[in-house]
Structures are given as structure tokens and as C-alpha cells.
């Protein structure tokens, strides 16, 4: 009997060896899902939802997608398994029938003088699109998807790659004719998130506004990839998605569309990076005075009254000063701007992809001055007459930034107008369906303005070093996605009276140095 007692005491000593908390966080009941059922979470969206970063989709980035981060926190309070259509490798890129159709991810490299620049990581993509995966997948984020693609049959049909289909959805679609929405709904989600609409304006923005604003056109099958989606089309699609997802009582989060023109892709190359010394400024000013003079003469020759001709031409007598000057940009030629160029305005943007060496060395964005042009300018200074050919030589030297390399104010307006309409739709849908509206627009404005602070750190929208944006200048870093997840959790905790653990952005990496 005594022996048994000794053994019992010894056992107690051994078992008490594992320290136990009074309230262990990993025990059921510590956290709480509140009024929602997190058991089956499905995320709908585009590249931002898939985890896409650094210009590619790759395994590590997918692991750090905001839906996957969320699911890891949901697991503390009833959240179930969360599956993703993982890529085949960690370098990114796609093969279609063995041909590379998407490149590897960007990493940061350094040139000989220590300046960082993004470059594609070495290696060949190994993810073959036609190797379709066995679903279903909780993460239904499809890079490149626009709103109307979510309900487009055939979006996952390999035969349509290059036109109507999306290779990322081809990999994961349950069937060639299924839709993203159908595959999402088939999982009977109890909780969903929807972040769609970015690409409905973003592809237009990235093209420098070379696409068309399709507002008023209700047939998305007639759109090209760089067009702005009609807000009514957006409203119809998102309503359908929300109705379908909530039809069985699921709750969820709708995330609205941030001001895409504030991402580093549009803010890294300044619109006033034409830096001149006093002599250069004087020379450029002189040049544009010559352009104004030539234009006045030309208009008078065309029969425009002299006063009117001078008034129109006066816009070309652009004054340059020592220091930073805004670039010259090409715009459509009109009666009031017959030469079709002007200086950029403060809110206009230059794209990250512009040829920066052309800006620096070839007079791109100002004037391509040649010895011949200088000779004509000299003649004009001496008050000599010039020929029509010489006049054309001067006008032709104006080397404004092409439409594809910049966003002008009318293009920015078109984007803003559509985006505001999308966001109104999302706000209305959230309210009508007792869903959370995560105001990412406001959050992103705040980050762009003053950064996002977290325990012992902050991120800003600075390209390469700010920590929020990956090296493509458009998509977030894992840390950026962690912030999205954290904000979503805060919103869920508040609106659905849940108690879920937050996300520490410091635990997630930013850009990768090679």
C-alpha cells in the first residue's frame, strides 16, 4: 500500500514536470469566434488574395497570403482546415505546355556601386498550368481576376488561355466550364471574404491609361484587358457573389478598393524629377519660348487671328527653373492644345516601368536637343528667319512622356470615379447583408500618408524599403498582407463580438535580398 503511495507521489512529481498555464491559449475556449462560424472559410479575390508578391505567385508568398494568415488565427476558435492551390516551387512563374508564360519572382540585387535594383530570381518556372490540382481550395484568389471574371464560365478552360481564360484558375478549377464563384459556393462556406475590383481599374492604370473607360458598356465580353469596368457591371457581379455566398447564412468581410494610384508603381518616379542647373533651365526656357513663337506664326499662317494665336501659343512658353521641374507629357492634340503636350500637373503620375535612362540621357520628358536644333535656336536668337523645315525640327524636338508611361489627370479621374462607385456598391452590400466592410481605402490612405506603426516597427509605401510593397510596386509584402489580416481580425472581433488573436506584422518578411 505504501509502495503504491510512493509511486503515486513520484508520478505526480513527473507529470507536474510539464508546466501548465492557468489559462492556456492553445486550449479550446480561450479564444472565441463570437457570432460567426469560422469552420469553413473561403476567400474570393484576385492576386492580393492569392498572396501574389514580387511579380509572381510562389509557395512562400502563398503561405503568407492574408487568407492563410487569417485561417491560422481562426484555428484558435473553431476555424477548420484551409487549403491553397500551392505553386510547384518557390521561384514563381508559369509554364503552359512547357512554354514559360509568366516569369520568376523579383528579388533585390545590388549593382557594383551598391545601388539596389529588382531582378528576376534565377531559375525556370516549374508550375505547369495543365497539371490541374485536386480541389476544392479555400483560397479562391485568382491573380489577374476582375470582378466579372468571378462569374465567367470558361475562365478555367485551358483552351482559352491568352483570351478568355486565366492560367491560375485553370490550375485550380473544378471543371473547365466552372466559375470561381461556383467553386467557392460548392464548399458551403460558413465565412467568406471578398476583395475584388482592384484589377477593374488597376490594369487601366498600369497601362498608363491606354485602355478604355467602359462606363456605360454593360457587356464585359466586349472589354479589353486594360479597360475600366462599368460600375453597374461591378455592382451586378458583386451582388451576385454576395447573394450566393450568404444564401446559406454565411457571414463575411468585404474589402474595398484603395486608391491604386498611391502604390509605389505610380509614386516612385517623381513627376518633377527633371533636375536642371541654371544654364540648362535658361536653355530649356529659351527653347520653349521659341516653340511658342513658332506656333504663333504657324497659327497665324493657318488664318487664326493674331491675338488668338498668341493666346493659344502662350501655353508652350514654359518656364523652367534651377532645381526640380515637372516633366513634359504628351496629351491628345486638340484645338486648344494643337501641339499635344504640356507640363505635368502636381497630381499626375509617372509609371515605375518608364525608361529611366531615356529620362536621364535622351531628353525624354523634356526636349531631345540636337546640334541641329541648337543651330535653329541660335538663328532665332539673332532674329533671323527660319524655314518651315527648321521650325518643324524645333517642334519635333519636344519629347513628352508617352501616354503609356504616365497617368494624366483625366485618366486619374476616370479611375477615381469608377473606384468610388465600386466602393459605394461594396458599402451598400455590406450593410444590407450584415457583413463587415473593411475600409482598406481609408487604411491605405493613412499608410500612404504616415505609415503603419506596429510593435517596434512601421511600414510605409516607399518602394523597396518601405516594407509594405513587394518589388513589383503593386502587390503587398508578406508583412503588408499580415497588416490586412490583422485589421480584418480587429474588425471581426468588433463587429461579430469575437475574440481572436491578432497578427504581429513584425513576424512577416518584406522584400528579399538575393
Amino acid at each position: 500500500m505504501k509502495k503504491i503511495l510512493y509511486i503515486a507521489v513520484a508520478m505526480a512529481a513527473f507529470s507536474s514536470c510539464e508546466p501548465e498555464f492557468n489559462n492556456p491559449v492553445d486550449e479550446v475556449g480561450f479564444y472565441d469566434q463570437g457570432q460567426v462560424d469560422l469552420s469553413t472559410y473561403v476567400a474570393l479575390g484576385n492576386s492580393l488574395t492569392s498572396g501574389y508578391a514580387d511579380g509572381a505567385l510562389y509557395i512562400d508568398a502563398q503561405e503568407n497570403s492574408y487568407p492563410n494568415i487569417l485561417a491560422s488565427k481562426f484555428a484558435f476558435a473553431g476555424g477548420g482546415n484551409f487549403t491553397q492551390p500551392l505553386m510547384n516551387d518557390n521561384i514563381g512563374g508559369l509554364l503552359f505546355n512547357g512554354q514559360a508564360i509568366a516569369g520568376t519572382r523579383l528579388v533585390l540585387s545590388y549593382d557594383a556601386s551598391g545601388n539596389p535594383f529588382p531582378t528576376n530570381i534565377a531559375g525556370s518556372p516549374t508550375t505547369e498550368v495543365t497539371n490541374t490540382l485536386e480541389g476544392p481550395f479555400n483560397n479562391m484568389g485568382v491573380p489577374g481576376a476582375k470582378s466579372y471574371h468571378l462569374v465567367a464560365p470558361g475562365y478555367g478552360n485551358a483552351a482559352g488561355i491568352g483570351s478568355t481564360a486565366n492560367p491560375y484558375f485553370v490550375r485550380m478549377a473544378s471543371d473547365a466550364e466552372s466559375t470561381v464563384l461556383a467553386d467557392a459556393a460548392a464548399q458551403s462556406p460558413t465565412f467568406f471574404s471578398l476583395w475584388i475590383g482592384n484589377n477593374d481599374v488597376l490594369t487601366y492604370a498600369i497601362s498608363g491609361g491606354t485602355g478604355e473607360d467602359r462606363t456605360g458598356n454593360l457587356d464585359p465580353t466586349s472589354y479589353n484587358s486594360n479597360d475600366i469596368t462599368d460600375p453597374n457591371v461591378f455592382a451586378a457581379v458583386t451582388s451576385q457573389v454576395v447573394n450566393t455566398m450568404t444564401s446559406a447564412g454565411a457571414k463575411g468581410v468585404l474589402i474595398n478598393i484603395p486608391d491604386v494610384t498611391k502604390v509605389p508603381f505610380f509614386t516612385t518616379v517623381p513627376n518633377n524629377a527633371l533636375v536642371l542647373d541654371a544654364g540648362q533651365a535658361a536653355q530649356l526656357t529659351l527653347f520653349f519660348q521659341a516653340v511658342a513663337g513658332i506656333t504663333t506664326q504657324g497659327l497665324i499662317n493657318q488664318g487664326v487671328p493674331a491675338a488668338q494665336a498668341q493666346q493659344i501659343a502662350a501655353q508652350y512658353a514654359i518656364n523652367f527653373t534651377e532645381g526640380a521641374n515637372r516633366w513634359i507629357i504628351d496629351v491628345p492634340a486638340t484645338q486648344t492644345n494643337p501641339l499635344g503636350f504640356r507640363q505635368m500637373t502636381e497630381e499626375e503620375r509617372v509609371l515605375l516601368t518608364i525608361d529611366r535612362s531615356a529620362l536621364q540621357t535622351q531628353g525624354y520628358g523634356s526636349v531631345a536637343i540636337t546640334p541641329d536644333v541648337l543651330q535653329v535656336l541660335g538663328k532665332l536668337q539673332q532674329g533671323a528667319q527660319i524655314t518651315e523645315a527648321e521650325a518643324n525640327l524645333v517642334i519635333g524636338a519636344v519629347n513628352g512622356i508617352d501616354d503609356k508611361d504616365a497617368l494624366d489627370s483625366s485618366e486619374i479621374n476616370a479611375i477615381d470615379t469608377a473606384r468610388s462607385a465600386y466602393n459605394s456598391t461594396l458599402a451598400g452590400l455590406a450593410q444590407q447583408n450584415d457583413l463587415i466592410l473593411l475600409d482598406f481605402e481609408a487604411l491605405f490612405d493613412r499608410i500612404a500618408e504616415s505609415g503603419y506603426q506596429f510593435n517596434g516597427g512601421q511600414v510605409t509605401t516607399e518602394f523597396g524599403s518601405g516594407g509594405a510593397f513587394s518589388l513589383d510596386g503593386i502587390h503587398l509584402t508578406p508583412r503588408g498582407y499580415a497588416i490586412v489580416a490583422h485589421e480584418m481580425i480587429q474588425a471581426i472581433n468588433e463587429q461579430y463580438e469575437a475574440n481572436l488573436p491578432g497578427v504581429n506584422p513584425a513576424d512577416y518578411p518584406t522584400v528579399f535580398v538575393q
Partner: protein
Amino acid sequence: MKTRFMTILALLALAHSYAGGFRVALQGQRALAMGHTGVAVVNTSEVAFFNPAGMSFLEEKLSVSFGMSAIFSNIAFQNEAFGYSVRSESSVGTPFNLYGTYKINEKLSLGIAVYTPYGSQVQYPDNWAGSHLVNDIELSAIFFQPTISYKITDKISVGGGPIYVSGNVNFSRNLDRSTTNTEGERIGVTIDQSGIGAWGYTAGLMFKPTDKLTMGINYRSEINVEARDGNADFRNIPENLQNQFADGTFDADLPLPAELSVGASYQVNGKWLVAFDYNRVFWNAYEALDVQFSNGLESINPRNYKDSSTYRFGFQYNASETFTLRGGYYFDESPVQDGYFAPETPRNNSNNFTAGLSVQISNRFAIDASFLYIHFNEIDASYDYYFENGQAAPFGGTYKNNAFIPGLGITYSL
């Protein structure tokens, strides 16, 4: 009286300070079983550590004892805000001690003591939430102490000796909270050096005013273990950052603090002995664990420990010719101050319970067994002096630790 006692207890419970540091008080199986008391106990050659002055009070001509303990320690950590939950990997440390004393004559005794009073062995899972502070650490120091003791009168003796320390350090952590190479592997560093030599001393005095009462005092000096040109190995560094994080060597100082012990023992009768010790460890010396790397980097880690006390109580009961039973308790106060609770030695105040026995298996040989259970209360604590890009990034949560330490030894006497 009772009220005052309760107040003291309440104050102890409230005291927001922590215990232990990397002191490992396991310097003798018999003493350990008695709450690690010993500065005024003359029992075996273990006294060479606890108070060298006591050697000349030993009755035996020759006494040798060897003992070893196995430390099974556990650390659990959690953070409610982010749902972190982690347990240190079970590590087993094996401190040991070897003592020998020899009576030259009635007054003079010589001895040798080899023991391991400082050490730490903690291993967290790779890349755990606090891996920018520590991933794993292994500190050990072996003390070699030739000792002499002289009995001035029948009641008073002195003793002491120089100490040579051979220290080893191996410490691994990640360089920050998230940076990886392109393969997704976190960047980190391991520093390693063994056989770092250093010198110190010990000195003690013992006083036996009566046959039954023994009093003692012992001082062991601070020993600064100076790692120089140890091996620093940086891992997972991207090619373009190789210059910044080149492998090389490191320098670091680790002070092993001085310790003052005073105590008394009382032989109640032929069967019962009780003992009390008070230890003051001068942890104030441990200001920082700063590491200078040969590549120009430095790692600044303030520790800012404060001096701490340990209160020990033990008893011994001679049950028979063969069996001697022992028990004890001590309260160990943490030297860690608020905001400096680093996960490499996450020790708060602890309550310690000891027990043991000796079995005299022959005239000359005895087996000594001991057992120590260390109980730490759950504690919310943080380390607030980690900086990233110039911004403080506190790391904290709730810690709960414990350790159980069985030990076995053998004593030979002539």
C-alpha cells in the same frame, strides 16, 4: 505576530522581481537534499565548496565525494495578443561535483574541489516568436579549486583557495524578427567558444562556539569569463549582404558574480541537525551581454541584473546506522528586473523543495541521493530592450517554468 507574518508573505507574493539567473546551485548531494545549506555544516568533503574553513573540522583522514544531477527543466511561454504558444525543447543538463579532502594533521587540511555552479541550457523550437532574442543557449563553467584549511583554535578555522574556471558558451539566435534569404530561411548567428580560462578565489571562516552550534561565512569572488576571438558563424545570409554579415570571430564578457554566504547549523541531538543559509549573489555585475563581432557588428543586450538573495533551510535525521534522511526548502529571489525578462534565462522567484537520503553501504562507502523540485509561479513579463531599426520592440507574454532535478552521489571516507 501572525499578522506581520502574513504581511511579509503578501509582500513576497507581490514582489515583482525574478530569481536565479544562470546560477545552478547543485554543489553536493547531501547539502542539496538539505535545501543546499552548507556554509556551517561539516558533513563530507562537500564542505570544500560550501566553506573551505570547514575542511579542518572533518573527522575523517580522507573524504572523497562525487555527485551528479540531471536537470529536467521546462519553459512554457504564451502570448495572448498573437496566440503564441511554445514550449522549450526538453533539455537535460548534467552538472557534477567532485571533492576530496585530506587531513595533513590536526590543524591543516588540503583539498580539491571541481564543480559547475553556473550554466544554462535552453533550447526553443527553431524560429519561434522570440528567436530574435534566443534560439538556443548553452553556458557551462567548470571550477577547479585547490583548497587549504587551517584550524586556528578548536573553535575557529579558516580556509580558502584559488579558483580556475574553464568556461564554454554556445549561443544561437536569429538576427531580427523576420528577414530571410530568398529560400525563406531566417538569417541568424551562432557564437561558440570553449575552454575560456579565468581566475578567482574563495575564502571562508568557521566558528564553533559550542559543541552543537556551528556558524560559517564564505565568500566566492566574481569571475569574469572573457571570450576572445570565439567563433561567430552567420547563417542564411544573402549573397549581397555577405560583406555586412561576414563570418569571423567575436568578443564577449560574461561575469560569474560573486557570492557571499552566511549560515548556522545546530545539532539538536544525536539524530537531528538543522541548518540555515543566507546567500547574497552580486548579480549587479551582470550589466549586459554585449557581443562584438570581427565584421564590425555589435549586439547590445542590456541585462541590468540586481543583487539577489536566497534563503535556505535544511534538516538531517540520522534514522539508523545505515540511513540518513534529509529535507529542505529554499526561496530563490530573481536578479532579473522588470522589463529585462529575457527568454534565455526566464527565471522569476522560485520556491524550491528538496529531499534526499544517504545509505551507508559499507564502512567506507555511502550512496547519496537527492531530489530538487523548483516551482515558479506563472508570470507576465517582457524584455523591453531589443531594438530594430532604432525602435524598441518589446517581447513578452506569460512564462511558466519548472524543473525537477534528481541527483546521485557516492562518498568515500577513511
